[in-house]
C-alpha cells in the first residue's frame, strides 16, 4: 500500500499522541533521576560561569585603586614607576599595538594566500594533510617559540638582519637607530609565526563554505581560477575572513610568553623605529609581578590585566559574531 503525505502526517501525529500518553503515565517516577542528573550537570555549569565572573570581578575590583587614582591618565602616562608610585601604560599599549599590527600586516596576506592554495589549487589528496600540518604550528608552546626567538632570531637580527634592513631600507623611519636584536621587530616576527595558523584555518574553513556550484558556474563561463577567486570566493567569504583576522589580532594582543622573551622589556621613547626595545601589556605583568604584592603597584598590574581582558573579550566577541554571520556554529582548529 502506498502512503500519501496526508496519511504519513496522520501516523506521525498518532505516534506523538501515544508517546505523550505513555510519558505522562510514568512521569513522576522516571523523572526524578533525570532531574537530579540534569541539575548535577547544571551545577558544574554554574561553577564554570562563576569562575568566569570571578575572574572579571577580581580584575575590576583590584584595579579600582589605580582607576580612581589615575583615571584615564593611566592609559596616557609614560612612566610605570613603582618607586614614585606613578603608573601609566602608554609605552605598553604602544608596544602591544605596534607588534600586533606588524604581525597582522605580514600574517594576513601569507595566511590568506596559503588558504587560497589549500582550497582552490591544492590536489585533493594533499589538502587535508597540509591543513593539518599547518594547524600543528598552533600546537608549539609559546615558550618554545620564545626560546627560538631569543636564541636564534634575535641574535640573527642583531648580527645580520637589522644591519641589512638599515643599509637597504634605512630611508624608512621603521629601520633606524641602533640594532639590538631584541625588540619590537623580533616580537612582531614571533607573533607572525604564532597567528599565521589561525588565519589559515579560519580563512580555509570560511572559503570551504562557498558553494562549489558557484565556482563551477564561473568556470563554465570561461573564467580562470583567479577570476573565480576574485569574483566569487573572496566576496562571499570576506566577512568570515575578517572575523578570522580579528580573532588573530586578539591572540596577538594577548600573547605573553614568546613576546616577553624577545621584546627586550625596556621602555624607550616611542618612535617609529622597530629596532627599539619595548614592552607590551602582558609582558609588563609577566615581568613585574614579583615585586608587586600590595598597594597601587599591585593594582596597576591588575589594571593592565583588565585592559588585556577587555581588549581580547571585545576582539573575540566581534570575531565570533562576524564568523557566525557566515552561518557556521563553530570553527575547527580553534580548540587545538
Amino acid at each position: 500500500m502506498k502512503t500519501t503525505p496526508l496519511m504519513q502526517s496522520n501516523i506521525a501525529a498518532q505516534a506523538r499522541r501515544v508517546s505523550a500518553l505513555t510519558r505522562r503515565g510514568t512521569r513522576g517516577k522516571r523523572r526524578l533521576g533525570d532531574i537530579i542528573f540534569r541539575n548535577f550537570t547544571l551545577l558544574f555549569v554554574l561553577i564554570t560561569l562563576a569562575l568566569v565572573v570571578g575572574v572579571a570581578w577580581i580584575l575590576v575590583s583590584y584595579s579600582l585603586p589605580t582607576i580612581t587614582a589615575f583615571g584615564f591618565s593611566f592609559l596616557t602616562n609614560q612612566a610605570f614607576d613603582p618607586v614614585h608610585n606613578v603608573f601609566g601604560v602608554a609605552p605598553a599599549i604602544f608596544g602591544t599595538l605596534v607588534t600586533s599590527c606588524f604581525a597582522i600586516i605580514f600574517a594576513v596576506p601569507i595566511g590568506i594566500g596559503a588558504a587560497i592554495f589549500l582550497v582552490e589549487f591544492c590536489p585533493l589528496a594533499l589538502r587535508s594533510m597540509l591543513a593539518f600540518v599547518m594547524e600543528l604550528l598552533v600546537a608549539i608552546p609559546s615558550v618554545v617559540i620564545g626560546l627560538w626567538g631569543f636564541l636564534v632570531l634575535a641574535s640573527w637580527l642583531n648580527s645580520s638582519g637589522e644591519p641589512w634592513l638599515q643599509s637597504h631600507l634605512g630611508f624608512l623611519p621603521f629601520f633606524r637607530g641602533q640594532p639590538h636584536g631584541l625588540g619590537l621587530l623580533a616580537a612582531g616576527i614571533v607573533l607572525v609565526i604564532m597567528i599565521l595558523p589561525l588565519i589559515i584555518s579560519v580563512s580555509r574553513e570560511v572559503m570551504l563554505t562557498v558553494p562549489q556550484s558557484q565556482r563551477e558556474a564561473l568556470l563554465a563561463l570561461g573564467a580562470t581560477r583567479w577570476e573565480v577567486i576574485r569574483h566569487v570566493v573572496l566576496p562571499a567569504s570576506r566577512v568570515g575572513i575578517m572575523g578570522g583576522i580579528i580573532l588573530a589580532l586578539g591572540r596577538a594582543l594577548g600573547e605573553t610568553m614568546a613576546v616577553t622573551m624577545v621584546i627586550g622589556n625596556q621602555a624607550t621613547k616611542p618612535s617609529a623605529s622597530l629596532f627599539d626595545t619595548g614592552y607590551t601589556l602582558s609582558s609588563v605583568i609577566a615581568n613585574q609581578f614579583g615585586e608587586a604584592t600590595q598597594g597601587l603597584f599591585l593594582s596597576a598590574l591588575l589594571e593592565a590585566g583588565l585592559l588585556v581582558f577587555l581588549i581580547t573579550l571585545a576582539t573575540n566577541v566581534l570575531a565570533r559574531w562576524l564568523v557566525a554571520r557566515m552561518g557556521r556554529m563553530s570553527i575547527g582548529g580553534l580548540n587545538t
Partner: protein
Amino acid sequence: MSAAAHPFLPPRSAHMLRRRASNLLILALAVAAALFAVAILIYLLLYVIVRGLPFLNVSFFTELPAAFGSSGGGMGEAVQGTLILVGLASIMGIPLGLCTGIYLSEFGRGSFAGAVRFTVMVLTGIPTIIFGLFAWVLIVIPSHGFSGLSGGVALGIIMIPIVASTSEEVLRLVPKEIREASLALGATEARTILSVVLPAALNGIITGIVLAMARIAGETAPLLMTAFGSTFWNADITQPMDALPLRIFVFTNSPYPIQISQAYAGSLVLIALIFIASFAVRWATGGFRRRR
C-alpha cells in the same frame, strides 16, 4: 592545430594571455605562502630536534639541574612538577569541562545554554596570563607564597573550555537513533546519557581531555606567578613547584651551553607530547577522512 580556427577555443589574444598570466602569478603566490607556512613548522621542528635530541637521556628525566657551570644533570623536578600540576588541573578542569559539555549537548537549548556556550567561547580566547593573575591574587597573595596548588587552579580554568567544547562536539556526533533506541527500551534520559551516549563518545571525550592536558603542559605565563619554579624535588602542593616550560624559560637565559641544550631537550619533550595528543584527536574524530 590552429587555435583561431577552432570554434570552441577562445582566440589567443593579448587579453587572454594577460588573464592566464595573472592566474599563474596568483598560483605562484599562493604556493609560496603555503610553502612558507609549512617550511616554518618543519624548520622549527627540525631545529629543536637537532639541538635537543642529543641531550634527551635518562638523567634528563631523573636528575635535578646540575650546579651552575658543571655539566650533566637534568630536569627531573620539572617533569615531576608538570605531572603534578597537570594532575591538579585535571581534578578541577575535567569534571567542570565534561559536565558543561554534557549539559550543552544534551540539554543545551534556549537562551541560558546560548549564554553558557558564549562564555565557553570567550574563555577560549582570554590570554592565559589572565588566569595566572586570577590565581595569583586569589591564592598566592593571601597565602604569602607561590604554590603548586595555585598553578593547578590557573591551569584547571584553562582546561575547562577545551574539554567542554570537544566533549560537546563528540557527544553531538552520537547518532539520534541510538538515543531513541535506548529511550524506546524504557531507559530514562539520565540512564540513556550515562550508559549509552557517553560510552559511544568515550574515545572522543578522552582524546579531548588528553589534548587539553597537553595544551596546559606547555603553558608558561600563568605558572610564572603561581607555581613559580623550584630547583628541588617537591611534591608538596603548598610549596613552589617547577614545571617544564618554566625550566625552559629559565634555562633560555642561562649563560651555560649545557643548560641551553637542555632547554631544547625540554622543548622537544613538550612538542612531542602535544603533537601526539593532536594526532590522537585527529584520529579519534576521524578527521583525516571527514574533513574536506
